[in-house]
């Protein structure tokens, strides 16, 4: 098959339009049905399934178009399109995972023992290329001894991923992000610090509020929904843990802290 760059570009526009549609519908669903948790999560499951069908069409089409392609410029565009599509699929999986975790009973049923250090390494590894691309130095500090916790693995993964993606979004190129895992008696603590745009004192108390985004955050990243930190803290609280944030103000970076109990 012979496709021009214009055609490919049109495909890219389609993906971008789809992203926008997903954002609008997703947020609408989130609010519209918030009064009834069960109905909301059932509805999310249906919407997720509906989203995955066109995403499958996009992924499989890209795969077919790229197969046997020798033009490196086109291959790169196909790869980027596939990355966008995969990212949307990941979002649907995260939504699906969160919907299945709704309520403490759902969480408890899916508790398992796992290495928190191992999970952190897995998440940072998956995000490394994004940090490199933005020229942000990502460092992690994990104790040598293996720290295992009993929790919902997908939920904790979502929290760590959210903390890191947040730091990535709001740190300027050339900046640095540090993740530290600590294990004081009776709990584990994950700290993600950055030297990014920081948070004004007046905004700190709202940072975990649903759909809240600071003015500076909206300027630096226009695509955010403002629900990631809200959901992350909800998951932490389902585990009888919590999330907090500290910042010395605008332009002075921020530190997000996850605390989980460890009996």
């Amino acid at each position, binding site marked *: 098959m012979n496709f021009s760059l214009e055609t490919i570009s049109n495909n890219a526009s389609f993906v971008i339009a789809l992203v926008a549609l997903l954002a609008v519908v997703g947020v609408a669903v989130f609010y519209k049905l918030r009064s009834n948790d069960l109905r909301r999560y059932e509805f999310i*499951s249906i919407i997720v*399934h509906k989203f*995955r*069908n066109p*995403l*499958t*069409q996009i*992924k*499989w*089409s890209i*795969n*077919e178009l*790229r*197969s*046997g*392609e*020798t033009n*490196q410029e086109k*291959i*790169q565009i196909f*790869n*980027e399109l*596939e*990355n*966008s599509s*995969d*990212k949307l*699929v*990941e*979002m*649907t*999986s995260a939504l*699906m995972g969160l919907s*299945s975790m709704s309520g403490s009973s759902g969480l408890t049923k*899916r508790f398992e023992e796992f290495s928190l250090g191992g999970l952190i390494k897995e998440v940072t590894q*998956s*995000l490394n*290329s*994004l940090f490199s*691309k933005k020229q942000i130095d990502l460092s992690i500090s994990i104790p040598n001894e293996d720290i295992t916790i009993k929790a919902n693995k997908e939920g904790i993964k979502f929290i760590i991923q*959210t903390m890191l*993606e*947040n730091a*990535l*979004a*709001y740190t300027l190129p050339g900046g640095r992000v540090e993740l530290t895992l600590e294990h004081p008696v009776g709990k584990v603590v994950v700290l993600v610090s950055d030297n990014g745009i920081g948070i004004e004192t007046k905004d700190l108390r709202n940072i975990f509020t649903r759909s809240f985004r600071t003015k500076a955050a909206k300027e630096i*990243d226009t*695509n*955010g*929904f*403002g*629900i*990631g*930190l809200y959901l992350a803290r909800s998951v932490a609280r389902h585990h009888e843990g919590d999330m907090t944030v500290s910042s010395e103000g605008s332009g002075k970076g921020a530190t997000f802290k996850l605390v989980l109990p460890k009996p």
Partner: protein
Amino acid sequence: MAQDPKSKETASSLQSLEGEINQASSAISLDGKKIVWVEDDNFLANIITRKFSATKCKLLHFSEGTEALKAISTELPDAVVLDILLPGMDGFEILSKIKEDPKTKNIPVIMLSNLGQPSDIKKGKSLGADHFMVKATVAPDEIVGQIKDVLDKNKK
């Protein structure tokens, strides 16, 4: 919350390698094998038909369960690939009927759906599915590879 698209390595050496891998996986042969595929999305079915033409297998595509079951019973394919959400009979019901029939119960079945909750996977496996894949997370080459694996496993 940032939702930056994840980037992949795009160095030309990696791209070349990816091209070779693509071509290698496209070259998987299912020569002489008969596969029944139940999928109601025509767009996906067309892609799959083109993909499978390169594997030299005989692909029988159906968009609903009744006709598919008739063909499975008469054609006795080497493997069945089943979507779950279908018009009329759903994929779980089709799977149950395949496994209830002594003639067809040993035919390996791969569930390929965009439902991917643990409860869906558990249900599919408890009904006798050999493998469960989520459509949006796999490329057609991986599906071909999985069919090959299932056929090889069943041969042993």
